């Protein structure tokens, strides 16, 4: 069930420049699925709208959810100042999440670019196959690769070439001669377009997590739509709601 609640910050630390890692104590952990997200509300009333942030890990037993996010503006800057014991206003759990069954036991690419990497961690924990994790960063300020190492083989690409392949995640796939039966990806739009093209070329399925500016987060405002190839069940005008019908879509269903 979706719920807005005042939760509590359990811990927070900066794990790379402007990238923060926060554990939140919340009953929402029990329902959280890989690829879902939370809306986090700033306390400053000049910044009204929720910030959609993907769930990086969920621990149902401890009742805790982990988010890893980048400071992108006033709202996330406020969150970055929260300390253990502070309250945090959240709404969740939102979105459809990754279709874990599609990847279980298969040769899988988990492709993450920058701040698109966090949702892959909870997904990686649920896949019990040959998981290959391809991570793209700007530079040597890596994050989450140590967590992901426990659940798959890591391949890194950096834009400046300081770690792994020089270039992007597609360069890392080529350089290492990697192959997969199915792809799960989250990252910037140019990366997702490349993933979609790669999947089409290799005739494999790809599930991509999209991002868009949101207002309500629950499917009412129609702010965050993605163009779909076919007429979708809700809008009837080829506009699926990223917050509710997504954020994860089969790559060939959306026109990006």
């Amino acid at each position, binding site marked *: 069930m979706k719920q807005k609640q005042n939760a509590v910050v359990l811990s927070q630390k900066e794990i790379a420049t402007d990238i923060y890692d926060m554990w939140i104590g919340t009953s929402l952990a029990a329902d959280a699925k890989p690829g879902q997200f939370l809306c986090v509300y700033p306390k400053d009333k000049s910044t009204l*709208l929720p910030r959609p942030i993907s769930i990086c890990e969920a621990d149902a037993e401890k009742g805790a959810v982990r988010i890893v996010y980048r400071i992108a503006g006033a709202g996330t800057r406020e969150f970055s100042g929260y300390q253990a014991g502070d309250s945090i206003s959240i709404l969740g759990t939102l979105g459809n999440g990754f279709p874990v069954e599609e990847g279980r036991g298969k040769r899988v690419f988990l492709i993450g670019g920058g701040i698109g990497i966090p949702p892959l961690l909870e997904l990686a924990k649920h896949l019990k196959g040959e998981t290959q994790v391809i991570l793209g960063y700007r530079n040597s300020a890596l994050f989450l690769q140590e967590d992901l190492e426990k659940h798959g083989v890591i391949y890194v690409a950096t834009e400046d070439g300081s770690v792994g392949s020089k270039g992007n995640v597609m360069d890392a796939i080529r350089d290492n001669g990697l192959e997969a039966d199915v792809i799960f990806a989250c990252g910037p739009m140019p990366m997702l377009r490349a993933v979609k093209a790669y999947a089409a070329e290799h005739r494999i399925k790809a599930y991509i997590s999209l991002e868009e500016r949101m207002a309500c987060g629950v499917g009412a405002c129609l702010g965050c*739509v993605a163009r779909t190839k076919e007429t979708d069940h809700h809008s009837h005008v080829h506009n699926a709601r990223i917050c509710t019908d997504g954020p994860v879509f089969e790559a060939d269903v959306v026109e990006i």
Partner: protein
Amino acid sequence: MNTQVTLAGVKLKNPVMTASGTFGSGMEYSEFVDLNRLGAVVTKGVSNVPWPGNPTPRVAEVYGGMLNAIGLQNPGIDVFMERDIPFLKQYDSKIIVNICGKTVEDYVEVVERLGEEPAVSMLEINVSCPNVKEGAIAFGQNAEALYGITSEVKKHAKQPVMMKLSPNVTDIGEMARAAEAAGCDAISLMNTITGMKIDIHKRRFVLANKTGGMSGPAIKPIAVRMVYQAARAVKIPIVGMGGIATGEDAIEFLLAGAAAVSIGAMNFVNPYTTIEVIEGIEDYMRKYHVENVTDLIGAVE
């Protein structure tokens, strides 16, 4: 304590409704609030055929509010009648359907279709959306055009008609009088104020549509002022809206002359806002020993 209000002959259990476009047809928010508790659900605008809306980004945050340029995306009247109306019929809340169109004929077509549905208590005519190129706001920024479309809609409407006015005009009183003279039964205001936001780092417009409608608490004083001016200009009831977040905000609108209020952008900030506003109005009535909520309408001194 009596919170009931009558709006153009329609009895509402309390004066709190939802602002069109911020609440869908209630489905999404029914996970958070009991729709039975609302005075009315005002639906997202519906047109005669499906409208795709504008490209993204469609929303942006601004200080104390937001901009939207959704562009009235909607699945059209056919889907609306088959899916949304049956859903809303399950609840004991009045149904007010917001209608948008590009031409007078577009509006009339939807008005006639809804005339077949007795569960719809009232029609709200959107002549004030700043985000679509044709129709809509063109009818709402000129008193003669507003008079024209209002009289056409009234000719074909089986339910009471509420015209939703734009704040993007010089004299709101003149617009309200034109709507009243054309025979409309109620007025709702205000729609959003046209705004713009520029990303200085990319030197680009934040919204794909360049401009968007501003809503949220930052516009509330403007809305209160316009409700006050319109209430002094006409005798028909007014539904006030613009940044209402609390019961106190709603009371301010009632005192300014609104017979009912709508909750808009704040639904996005707190999905429980509608219920909290209803309870806030009741708290105020208890505190100040107000017997009937109607005693508050226009009671500013």
